[in-house]
C-alpha cells in the first residue's frame, strides 16, 4: 500500500518535472525567435553592442589570460612527469600540451569559466531589470525588450572565439615556459613537438565549438534572467541555476560536437 502510494507520488513528480523541462525548452526557443524580431534602432544597438563587448569580452580577458597561462604550464609539467620512459621522445610534451590546449582546455574549460563569470553577470543583470520593472518599462515604451537586452549580448559573444585564440596562445606560452625553464626539455624539442602532426581541421573544430558555446553562454543565462520570478533572493537563485544549466549544456554539446566532427 505504502509502496504504491510512493510510486504514484514519484510518478506524478516525474511527470511534472518532465513537463516543466519541455515547457522551458519551448520557451527558450521562442525567446531566441523573439530576440531577432522587431529590431531596436540601429544607433542604439551599436552603442549596446560596444558596451556588451566591453562588459562580456574585454573584461574577461584578464582572467582568461591568467588561467590559460597557468593551466598550460600545469599540463606541460604533468605530461613531463608522466613520460618517464626514455624511449618516449621529450618533444611529445610539446605535442601533448598543444593537443590538450587546442582541443579541450581552451574551448571547453574557458567556456565553463565564462559560464561562471559572464553567465552569472547576464542572469543577474537581466534578472534585476525584471525585478525592478525595467523590462516592463521597455515593453510599455513599445521596445522589444528581448531584442534590446539579449541581441547585443549574442553579437558581442560572437567575439568569444577570439578569446579562445588568445587562450590557446597564452596556454602554449605557459606550457613552453614551464617545460623549458623547468628543465624538462629544450626549447627546440618543445617547438618540434608543437609542430608535430599538426591537423588544421582540429583548430577549425575548436573554433566551431567555441562559437556554439558562445551562443549558449549568451542565451541560456539570458533565459534564466528574463523569465525569473520573485525578488532579489530569486535573482541569486537564478544566477546559480543558470551557471549549472549553462555548464551542463556546454559539456553535453562538447560531447555531441566531438562525436560529430572527430570520431
Amino acid at each position, binding site marked *: 500500500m505504502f509502496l504504491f502510494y510512493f510510486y504514484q507520488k514519484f510518478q506524478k513528480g516525474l511527470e511534472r518535472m518532465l513537463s516543466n523541462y519541455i515547457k522551458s525548452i519551448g520557451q527558450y526557443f521562442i525567446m531566441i525567435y523573439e530576440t531577432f524580431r522587431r529590431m531596436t534602432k540601429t544607433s542604439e544597438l551599436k552603442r549596446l553592442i560596444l558596451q556588451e563587448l566591453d562588459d562580456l569580452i574585454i573584461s574577461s580577458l584578464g582572467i582568461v589570460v591568467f588561467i590559460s597561462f597557468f593551466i598550460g604550464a600545469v599540463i606541460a609539467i604533468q605530461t613531463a612527469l608522466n613520460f618517464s620512459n626514455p624511449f618516449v621522445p621529450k618533444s611529445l610534451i610539446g605535442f601533448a600540451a598543444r593537443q590538450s590546449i587546442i582541443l579541450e582546455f581552451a574551448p571547453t574549460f574557458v567556456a565553463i569559466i565564462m559560464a561562471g563569470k559572464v553567465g552569472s553577470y547576464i542572469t543577474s543583470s537581466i534578472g534585476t*531589470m525584471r525585478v525592478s520593472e*525595467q523590462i516592463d518599462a521597455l515593453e510599455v515604451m513599445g521596445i522589444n525588450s528581448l531584442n534590446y537586452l539579449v541581441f547585443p549580448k549574442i553579437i558581442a559573444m560572437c567575439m568569444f572565439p577570439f578569446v579562445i585564440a588568445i587562450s590557446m596562445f597564452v596556454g602554449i606560452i605557459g606550457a613552453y615556459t614551464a617545460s623549458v625553464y623547468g628543465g624538462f626539455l629544450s626549447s627546440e624539442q618543445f617547438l618540434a613537438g608543437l609542430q608535430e602532426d599538426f591537423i588544421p581541421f582540429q583548430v577549425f573544430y575548436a573554433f566551431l565549438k567555441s562559437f556554439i558555446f558562445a551562443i549558449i553562454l549568451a542565451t541560456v543565462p539570458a533565459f534564466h534572467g528574463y523569465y525569473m520570478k520573485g525578488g532579489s533572493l530569486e535573482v541569486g537563485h537564478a544566477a546559480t541555476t543558470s551557471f549549472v544549466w549553462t555548464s551542463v549544456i556546454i559539456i553535453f554539446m562538447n560531447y555531441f560536437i566531438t562525436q560529430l566532427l572527430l570520431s
Partner: protein
Amino acid sequence: MIKVEDLHKSFEDLEVLRGVNTTFEKGKTNLIIGQSGSGKTVFLKCLLGLFTPDEGTILYNGKAYQNFSKNEKRELSKQMGMVFQGGALFDSMTVEENVVFPLKMFTKMTKGEMKNRVEEVLDRVNLVDTNDKFPSEISGGMQKRVSIARAIVNKPNFLFCDEPNSGLDPRTASVIDNLIQEITHENDITTVINTHDMNSVFEIGENILYLENGLKAWEGNKDNIYKTDNQKLTDFVYASNLFQKVRVTQREGL
C-alpha cells in the same frame, strides 16, 4: 479617453478581474483604489497592454485595442507614458540619459532639440543639477520625478502611474500628486493612477474607481466620496482614525 467594457482576466484558476466597466476621462486624474489583491495592478497592466484580457474590450479614443493593427499598437505604446511604483529607471543610465531615452528611440530629433526637451521636462518636474547623476545617487522622491519626466518627455496622450507616491514622505507625496494633476491639466491627457494613498484620493481624485474582488464596487469623485453610503468603500477609505475624523467633520459641514 479610455473606455473599458466587461474586462475579465484570470491566471490559471484565479479570477482576478471579473467584468470591469468604466470610463477614464481625458484631462482628468482618474484614480483606481482598492485593497491589496483587488486587481488594481492587473487592471493597469491590461490597460498598458502588458497583459492580454481574457474577455472584454478596452477602447482608446473610441477604438478597440483588439482591432488595432501591429503598427497601430506600436504607435499607441508610443503615446503612453508610465510611472512605475519603484520608478523603474535604468540603473546604468544617468538621469539625463533616462529621460532622453524615449526621444532617442522614437523620434528623429537632433541632439540639440533632445537636450532642450530634456531640460524643459526636468525643469517642469523641478529637478535641477541632477542630469549627470545615476538613479542610485538621488532620493526616492527625485527618482519618482525623473520617472515622471521620462513618462512625459514624448508628450503622451495617456499617462499611467502605479502607486506614484508609495514610500515617500507625506510632503513629497503631495508634491508628486499635484505635479501629476498639473501635467494632466496642462497637456489635456488621460491619466490613470493606481493608488493606496487616501491623501491622493482627497487631493487629486477627479474620478475614482473603487475595485473590490475584481469588480467595480463604486465610482465617483473626491467630493461625493464623503457622502457615499457604500459600506465597504467607507471601511476602506476611512480605515485610519485620522480619516474617520475628517469624515465626521465633512459630514457635519464644519
